[in-house]
């Protein structure tokens, strides 16, 4: 009886979605962001809906009911494509302390809602295909003022109740069957496309009603029978109907509660931020720049200052001092009667164009009136001159307050390669350059089956010495004070244990020399950049590393080659080595698309001697926030690789400046892998060339130029 009733609800919802195609009133403002369901995707309670989140929205969901905790991160990668990473804990699921399941979803909005047609989305849930959440769906949602109706058809986990023969069986007989889930940790992580949309299908649906401005009520008919859970006696289902409510706070927080399957109560929190608007103070809070100082008419003819013997030196000292007060560093400067050429580093601003803009304004205040041309050569943090930006002082004076001054100044700037780098007298304060720092560090390991997050906390001391531009000696020592990363499970790897001995490194390296290197950064020729690093390169490897990068200043494309000969370091991370040594290296191609996406392919030999390639895709915002994913396939078989089958993960980077509103170049960067194994593992070398060079080149400067006058 109950089932009949519920089926009717689903049927009605689907019918409403498909047939009641009427123009909607402008009630949909509150629907700007759909609610997220218990699996962290746009949806009602357990079932998905079809609308997408606003572009770039990043949402975190945490929900719990009766021995189950589900957490998920949902990222709207493009206006139509989104990705989910989910981490679920189920108590008493098997004989161990608890069951942790990691899964990835992708969703695609096939067509957005129009006046007459519903939004339609397709989703692949846990598309590895072997996890307990594996399922696919096609769902449609239509808005009728304050009401939203959803209907869909699902496979796999979504075909748990009242399943029927797969309609796709008409296309090919193989769709009629779905092989049983393969369990066992070694089988996880494979992309099992052969399972998708196979086996029985079932219908689901529901209604959402918006009550007032901030409250959404949901009722759904769920086709999820929770078979893995019910078969273990963990969850009872009395009814396929779920009801719930979501309250939306102003700060991006949603609080939801639901009554599941007539037996369980669920509570869920969702927090949504958009990296395009990370703070409520767009443009930042840093103090105003020095204004452009216009020259009095006719003053440019006065060359009297050139007669002063120490004129150039005084000017250089003035510039060095004012730069230092403004978050810039002067490496070298050469002043001629009509031109000044200087090499500078940005030590403070996330945005390079802003640093260039500030340097330019300082020069208008300090340079004698006859100096008409400013040549600014920004240098990477490692000391490589990467571009040559030529600005005419007259243009700067003219455009300082022009309504469209940013773009006009970009149009009139000449951006060229810095090669060959002319000899300019070094700023006396700049070299030799010695820096040190002391502070806490935090190291994390994720998703250990017995402890989802493991942390180590300790003290780190670092020092860096640059006797002349591009020659860098640096080292770091860490002392671990507390933590539990040493309790990570011992390695069970069947290939060389190039990364899975992490627990031993932590245990034995209480005080560790993390790295100690000598590096030379140089320009072998036009469009070419070079690096040679020697020493203890990272906590697990030492040796020699060399890299050459080809990157024309206006190009969005770059190629690099890196070769390393390294030996595995002793566990205590002193000066000693173990026996394992390997020649590892990659050919890399980089593409910086103008839609904010960056692509990188690294092909070559990894630490375990395995051959393969890594694809990384990032979405990058102009404020410096980056969110991306990567995957590596090598000739290590899925079985030999072990848990996870191949190396993959997500990566994010958030400049501190976007969190605090104050200019500071430090970033929070984290790479999160479902599991760290030995296949597809890459050497970590500091000072890889591409990122540093790219941010001083034209495509990047151009997209940042809006802050030139900030």
């Amino acid at each position, binding site marked *: 009886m109950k089932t009949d009733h519920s089926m009717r609800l689903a049927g009605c919802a689907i019918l409403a979605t498909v047939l009641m195609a009427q123009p909607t009133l402008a009630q949909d403002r509150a629907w700007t962001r759909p609610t997220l369901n218990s699996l962290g995707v746009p949806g009602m309670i357990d079932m998905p809906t079809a609308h997408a989140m606003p572009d770039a929205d990043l949402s975190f969901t945490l929900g719990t009911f009766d021995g189950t905790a589900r957490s998920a991160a949902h990222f709207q990668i493009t206006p139509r494509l989104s990705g989910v990473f989910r981490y679920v804990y189920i108590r008493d699921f098997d004989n161990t302390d608890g069951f942790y399941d990691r899964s990835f979803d992708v969703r695609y909005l096939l067509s957005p809602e129009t006046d007459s047609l519903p939004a339609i989305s397709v989703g692949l849930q846990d598309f590895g295909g072997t996890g307990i959440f594996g399922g696919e769906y096609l769902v449609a949602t239509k808005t009728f003022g304050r009401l939203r109706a959803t209907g869909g058809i699902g496979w796999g986990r979504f075909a748990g109740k009242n399943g029927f023969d797969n309609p796709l069986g008409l296309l090919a007989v193989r769709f009629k069957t779905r092989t049983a889930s393969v369990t066992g940790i070694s089988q996880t992580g494979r992309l099992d496309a052969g399972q998708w949309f196979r086996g029985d299908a079932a219908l689901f649906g529901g209604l959402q009603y918006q009550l007032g401005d901030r409250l959404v009520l949901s009722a759904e008919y769920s086709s999820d029978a929770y078979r893995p859970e019910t078969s273990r006696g963990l969850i009872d289902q009395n009814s396929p109907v779920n009801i719930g409510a979501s309250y939306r706070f102003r700060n991006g927080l949603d609080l939801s509660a639901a009554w599941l399957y007539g037996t369980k109560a669920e509570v869920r929190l969702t927090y949504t931020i958009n990296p*395009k608007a990370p703070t409520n103070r767009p443009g930042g*809070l840093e103090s105003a720049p020095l204004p452009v100082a216009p020259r009095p008419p006719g003053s440019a003819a006065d060359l009297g200052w050139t007669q002063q013997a120490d004129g150039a030196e005084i000017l250089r000292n003035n510039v060095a001092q004012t730069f230092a007060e403004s978050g810039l560093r002067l490496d070298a400067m050469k002043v001629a009667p009509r031109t000044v050429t200087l090499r500078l580093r940005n030590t403070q601003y996330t945005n390079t164009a802003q640093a260039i803009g500030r340097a330019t304004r300082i020069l208008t205040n300090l340079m004698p009136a006859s100096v008409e041309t400013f040549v600014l050569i920004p240098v990477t943090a490692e000391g490589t001159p990467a571009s040559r930006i030529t600005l005419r002082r007259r243009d700067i004076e003219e455009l300082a307050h022009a309504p469209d001054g940013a773009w006009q100044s970009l149009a009139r700037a000449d951006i060229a390669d810095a090669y060959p780098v002319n000899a300019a007298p070094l700023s006396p304060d700049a070299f030799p350059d010695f*820096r*040190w*720092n002391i502070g806490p560090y935090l190291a994390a390991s994720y998703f250990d089956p017995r402890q989802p997050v493991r942390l180590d906390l300790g003290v780190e001391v670092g020092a860096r010495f640059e006797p002349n531009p591009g020659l860098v000696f640096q080292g770091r020592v860490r002392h671990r004070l507390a933590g539990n990363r040493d309790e990570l499970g011992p390695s069970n790897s069947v290939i060389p244990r190039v990364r899975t001995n992490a627990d031993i490194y932590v245990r034995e390296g209480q005080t560790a020399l993390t790295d100690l290197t000598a590096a030379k950064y140089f320009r072998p020729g036009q469009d070419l950049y070079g690096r040679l690093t020697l020493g203890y390169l990272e906590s697990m490897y030492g040796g020699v590393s060399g890299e050459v990068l080809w990157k024309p200043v206006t190009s969005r494309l770059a190629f690099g080659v890196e070769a390393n000969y390294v030996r595995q370091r002793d566990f205590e991370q002193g000066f000693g080595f173990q026996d394992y040594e390997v020649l590892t290296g990659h050919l890399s191609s980089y593409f910086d698309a103008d839609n904010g996406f960056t692509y990188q392919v690294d092909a070559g030999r990894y630490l375990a001697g395995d051959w393969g390639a890594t694809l990384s895709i990032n979405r990058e915002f102009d404020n410096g926030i980056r969110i991306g994913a990567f995957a590596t396939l090598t000739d290590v078989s899925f079985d030999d690789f072990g848990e996870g089958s191949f190396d993959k993960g997500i990566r994010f980077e958030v400049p501190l400046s976007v969190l605090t509103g104050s200019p500071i170049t430090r970033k929070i960067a984290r790479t999160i892998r479902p599991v760290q194994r030995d296949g597809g593992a890459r050497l970590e070398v500091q000072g890889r060339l591409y990122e540093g060079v790219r941010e001083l080149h034209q495509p990047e400067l151009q997209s940042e130029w809006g802050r030139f006058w*900030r």
Partner: protein
Amino acid sequence: MTRSLFPLLCVLLLSACGSDSEGRTYATVRQAVGALFAGQERPDLRQTLTPAFIAGFGQPLLFVELPDRDVQAGALLAQQNGPRQIWATQDGITLTLLGGFLTETRGLGGDLMSTDLGDIAPDFGGQTDSSVRIHRYLTGDDRLVAMAFVCNYARVPGVSATTVAGQFDTLRVSETCSGPEIGFENLYWINGAGVTVKSVQWIGPNVGYAHIELARGQ
């Protein structure tokens, strides 16, 4: 356990020091923490800016108030170039006035990056009764966006205006602007010499209005 540790860890991670940071990281953290506990009573700057104080001040001074941010400040003339004046406060905020119009701000967050005043600037006190304004702002992901407004002007002569500097007989100009999504109304009080002695001008959607009074001219 982990949850209660989290904020502490964040602060610790941010608080590294060394030759490089020059205390900047620490200052950033302190600022962020300070901001949480801000909001104590501040004295009204208007009480300080008495006519006697202003007379003895000895250099140009502008009084600025941002009601939406609940701040007041005195600004000194940092640069004058023709009709353009750049006023700077002690805490590193600048306001650029072009013949009395606020055309740029820096250092506020949500700054007005530039203004295209259209046809109105040369004939502000005259006959022109409508014009177009274009403002530019930085977005959260550092792109410049332009907002265009159509503005209408109305002038009322012989209006008495009170400022920190005293009482003036002024021409009051109201500027009513509307754009596709947002509108604002600016007010200017102009004395007989053509100097804007007082104004209420909209900076932008993030900052709101600025109340500006010329405490002391050249």
